[in-house]
């Protein structure tokens, strides 16, 4: 029997779910309706800032195409909201007052930007009406606002020192705007990085043309620009940061009101178990930014330390892939078969790699402990579990900093600034829980110039000069001593230089050296 699945929300995570369900749609195993509030089908929200600074196009951000999906048999409703859900009848009611039945419903409602409590901003989180010149940089229209500010080289004030805020400010600065980041605390990125990397990062951002206003507490916005638009961000010390555009980058909050409204248990996000099922409601699921994986089992070790939704798209995509398989099996083979599927593996703490041209930064896990910080290093080292160890490299003059926090040789935290190869390698090691080499300095040298072809020209007579024919320098020297005086003659006598010919210069050098020595 064909199951009707309704997906509420059409962002990147919903797009992946829909794509993964297509085979089941094609065979008629499931009917699929996806409801999106925006006028566009899913696009890559992660790259909205890139669009805002003119580094990509809206076309390139697209992740789904409504008409192609419809051609495949998927129902797509764009530009409508789900007003409420009637769980008793298994219906959703849309903003155009139509109702649609569901057998299974998947919340993929994502999140919305946090609007900080500032005088001059409407504090209502569900209906923020922002003054002109203030944007939360969430959708394509927000990107267009930033785009024109950057194109005109205007002053862009970014409130918030999170990843997206830094990416936006740096990219805007590189593309010609004057960007200022206003953040609280001594350095941006808060507790995900440590003081050393924070300091190096600030210097790198400044070198990239971004003004950094740290330890700042903002209190309000001044809207005395043209037509009442944004003109300055007001701080609690009475100062103000002037600008033409304010980008609010103060984090996101899961969109849970629809789930909450129909009586589902929620915390920060919609609470789901390891099968992404909402509590005590076999017809409903949640994935992506709106979902909080924390099972009802109080004894579950994984969930004891569970935080809220990670706010990264990678885990959402993995959830979408997993749920698509679950739903297909559920529709085909029933509940028992679906529940027999292996539960979704626990997510590792998220890895953040700053999307930036001028700065290289990777950060993951817990980076608070310092090498001599006994209390933090011993934390969690009970019952045979190894203690944490720290390896650290700081070279602020050259904008380089690395810290590796390991337990039993496996990374629990990493932060790397200004060392792209090291950062790339550490992230792979972290993602795989692989053991680091005992000599951690191996990882620090990846960005060094000595990594590339050291000692290509040695004086070892046994070194191979001609790889193709396998001829050593000694053999060539012998042939020269025996009377060969040109590359051709050496080739004839030894076969050196008879393959790719790449060693001809080298052979010439040996001949010249021989005759110079003879002349001397």
């Amino acid at each position: 029997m064909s199951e009707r699945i309704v997906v509420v929300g059409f962002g990147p995570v919903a797009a992946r779910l829909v794509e993964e369900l297509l085979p089941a749609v094609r065979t008629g195993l499931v009917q699929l309706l996806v409801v999106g509030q925006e006028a566009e089908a899913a696009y890559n929200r992660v790259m909205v800032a890139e669009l805002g600074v003119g580094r990509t196009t809206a076309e390139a951000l697209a992740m789904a195409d409504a008409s192609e999906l419809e051609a495949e048999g998927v129902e797509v409703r764009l530009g409508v909201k789900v007003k409420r859900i009637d769980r008793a009848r298994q219906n959703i009611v849309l903003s155009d007052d139509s109702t649609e039945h569901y057998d299974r419903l998947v919340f993929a409602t994502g999140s919305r930007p946090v609007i900080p409590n500032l005088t001059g901003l409407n504090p209502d989180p569900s209906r923020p009406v922002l003054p002109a010149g203030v944007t939360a940089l969430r959708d394509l229209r927000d990107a267009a606002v930033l785009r024109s500010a950057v194109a005109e080289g205007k002053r862009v004030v970014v409130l918030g020192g999170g990843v997206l805020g830094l990416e936006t400010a740096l990219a805007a600065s590189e593309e010609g705007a004057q960007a200022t980041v206003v953040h609280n605390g001594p350095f941006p990125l808060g507790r995900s990085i440590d003081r050393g990397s924070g300091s190096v990062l600030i210097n790198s951002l400044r070198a990239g043309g971004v003004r950094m206003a740290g330890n700042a507490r903002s209190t309000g916005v001044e809207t005395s620009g043209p037509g009442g638009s944004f003109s300055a961000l007001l701080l609690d010390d009475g100062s103000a940061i002037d600008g033409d555009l304010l980008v609010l980058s103060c984090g996101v909050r899961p969109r849970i009101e629809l789930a909450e409204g129909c009586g589902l248990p929620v915390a920060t996000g919609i609470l789901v178990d390891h099968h992404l099922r909402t509590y005590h409601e076999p017809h409903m699921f949640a994935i992506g930014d709106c979902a909080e994986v924390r099972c009802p089992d109080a004894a579950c070790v994984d969930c004891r330390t569970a935080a809220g939704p990670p706010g990264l798209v990678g885990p959402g995509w993995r959830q979408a892939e997993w749920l698509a398989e679950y739903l297909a099996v559920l529709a085909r083979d029933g509940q028992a078969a679906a529940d027999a599927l292996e539960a979704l593996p626990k997510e590792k703490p998220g890895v953040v790699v700053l999307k930036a041209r001028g700065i290289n930064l990777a950060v993951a896990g817990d980076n608070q402990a310092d090498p001599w910080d006994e209390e933090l290093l011993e934390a969690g080292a009970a019952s045979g579990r190894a203690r944490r160890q720290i390896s650290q490299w700081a070279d602020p003059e050259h904008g380089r900093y690395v810290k590796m926090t390991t337990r039993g040789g496996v990374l629990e935290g990493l932060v790397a600034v200004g060392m792209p190869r090291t950062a790339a390698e550490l992230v792979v090691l972290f993602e795989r829980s692989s053991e680091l080499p005992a000599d951690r300095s191996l990882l620090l040298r990846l960005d060094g110039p000595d990594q590339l072809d050291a000692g290509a020209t040695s004086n070892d007579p046994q070194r191979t000069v001609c790889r193709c024919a396998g001829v050593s320098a000694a053999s060539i020297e012998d042939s020269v001593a025996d009377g060969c005086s040109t590359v051709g003659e050496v080739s004839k006598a030894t076969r050196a230089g008879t393959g790719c010919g790449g060693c001809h210069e080298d052979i010439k050098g040996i001949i010249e050296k021989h005759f110079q020595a003879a002349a001397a």
Partner: protein
Amino acid sequence: MPNGADTHCPYCALQCAMTLTPAASAAGAAPAPEAEPAKVDVPLEVSGRDFPTNRGGLCRKGWTSASLLRHNGRVTEPMLKGSDGVHQPISWDQALMLITTAVKDIQQQYGNDAVGVFGGGGLTNEKAYLLGKFARLALRTSRIDYNGRFCMSSAAAAGNRAFGVDRGLPFPVTDLDTASVILMLGSNVAETMPPFVQHLQGARDAGGLIVVDPRRSATAAFTGDGGGLHLQPTPGTDLALLLGISHVVVHEGLVDADYIEANTSGYAAVVRSLSAFWPERVQSITGVPATLIRETARRLAQGARDGGSYILSGRGVEQHVDGTDTATAAINLSLLLGLPGSARSGYGTLTGQGNGQGGREHGQKADQLPGYRKITDPAARAHVAGVWGIDESLIPGPGLPAVELLKSLGKPDGVRCLFVHGANVVVSAPDTNAVIQGLRSLDFLVVCDFFMSETATEADLVLPVTQWAEEEGTLTNLEGRVIRRRRALTPPPGVRSELWLMARLAELLDAPSTFSDDPETVFEELRLASAGGLADYSGIDYAMLDRGEAAYWPYPVGSTGTPRLFTEGFAHADGRAVMVPVTPSKRAVRSFADDSLALATGRLLEHYQSGAQTRRVSELLASQPQARLLIHPGTAASRGIADGDYATVTNERGEVLCRAELSNSVRPDTVFLPFHFPGQENANRLTEAATDPISGMPEFKTSRVWARKAVSTQEPASYTVPAGTRLPLHVKEAS
């Protein structure tokens, strides 16, 4: 007949031109007596010959190739394995009778598909063609496939899907000379086909050689000193890397929009599929810094505007369970940049085996008929049946791809009698322990070879066949150019050509149609059979090849051939290239938690394929006498392995024991083993028989293994040196 000829090297697909002339001292001489181990009896002298591919250059494999012609270990009579397990010579008449009886008995009892054929990409076009016909008409079996499945199948499947045709390089190799940028994907030509390196020089001089390889291979080292870029992804992540590069091309506006509009379909869906692969995310998957990903995309785009950009793929990215999709990602990247079919740019795959191109066109594949036709296509069947003069119903349907074929050996409903031609599966197939078991469970195994290869050793019957310098024929090189192999030497008296063998057996098995043992006659038939197919050879004949004409297929009668494909559009009905969105499979992304490592297998300059030939060349063996495990010093240190130590490499399929070589050239999470060695050094004991769902390609490059220092302090002996190989003294003492 005068000894001596203009021919091509017996080994790889570059098919370097060489001239064979009678050696002054040794021509026609009897094998040298054992008392003179230093004197190797080489009947022919090899010299490089000027030709566009090699420009007179040869590597040491080619230079030493003639030393195998009168090698003491050469099989020169049919050899039957006795009940004591020892092979004893028998006459050809006896051998043919034995085979005929075995085939008839087994087929009567178990059905026609109980007899199978395993071919090779080193066979001439004539042999490959006739082998397909022999299997279908004389053996009446669908069970034929070949070792090219381990080699070119993923690139071939991707090429067919995208372009509608699969010719390794759709342009002459000399087109590369003027390129400003060449992206080499998992191809180590500096070792595998050294004279090819000449064609990279222009790109190196322009700083535009970009090599993707987890290892700093000899080819990757060319990118040093301003030669270009080396991208070192962790094994199994090539597809994600290519998506990342393509993402940058799309997002930075580097797409050749006019080209896409005029020449492709599927663009929008591919763009959508790329959206999720921004460089920083791809960095987290691959370990390749985002800056290098961006730089690669920009250089490729710039190169396409300057002297030209080429993307060349090799086994490194293709020999995976997602090899077809990875090759597709490479093709999509090349299409986004507008490379295929343009005058100065292109995409290609570097074919490996000597006749890896021709060998995949004329019916050795389980699903294929001559001319690169599909065996399931009624029109193709009718055409070939017409050429063969038989009823179409006599042609069996599709068989099993190589890995499945080998898995079926000795199984109920599987193959019980196998013919092996030009392959050494005991060394070269994945999961060789299982392959050996399969071979040993057969009722009858026939192996055609010139040496007692590891697979021949397993055979009930070994049939001695001609070597390259003793036969006439054609091969199709990596450019799709048909070239002549010429006889320079009379074979030893007991040796026969496989054409002769198939013709005799066909007669004894009452096969319909005709089977000639004359290469030119077989080629004339191949021309007809290929006519109208994708790989159309109908306009090519021996006379024109002997005049030195450059014949690139498709070459229909009345045409002048096709040096460059796609200049007038692609081979699909609408003339467009098909862009297919691809994404990394969950299966391909492997976990290497704990202390496991990724094993990549590959090649050394000195050896070719399973080493059955090159391990018998004393000069090559002396240079690379044994397998060595390449391991990063940091990885080795944490396992207590020192340089030169014996190490064991294990997983659930088997164990390899060999020396370790510490090197910065491999990633710390990866070890590398050459696959040319048998026995305890056989890398394919560890590889997995999991295959790509589209191409049937096995996973050769990401096996999960554990490396340890060998427990025994006593040095294990290396494998037994093949009989008749004369070793230089220092190697003898070492082994």
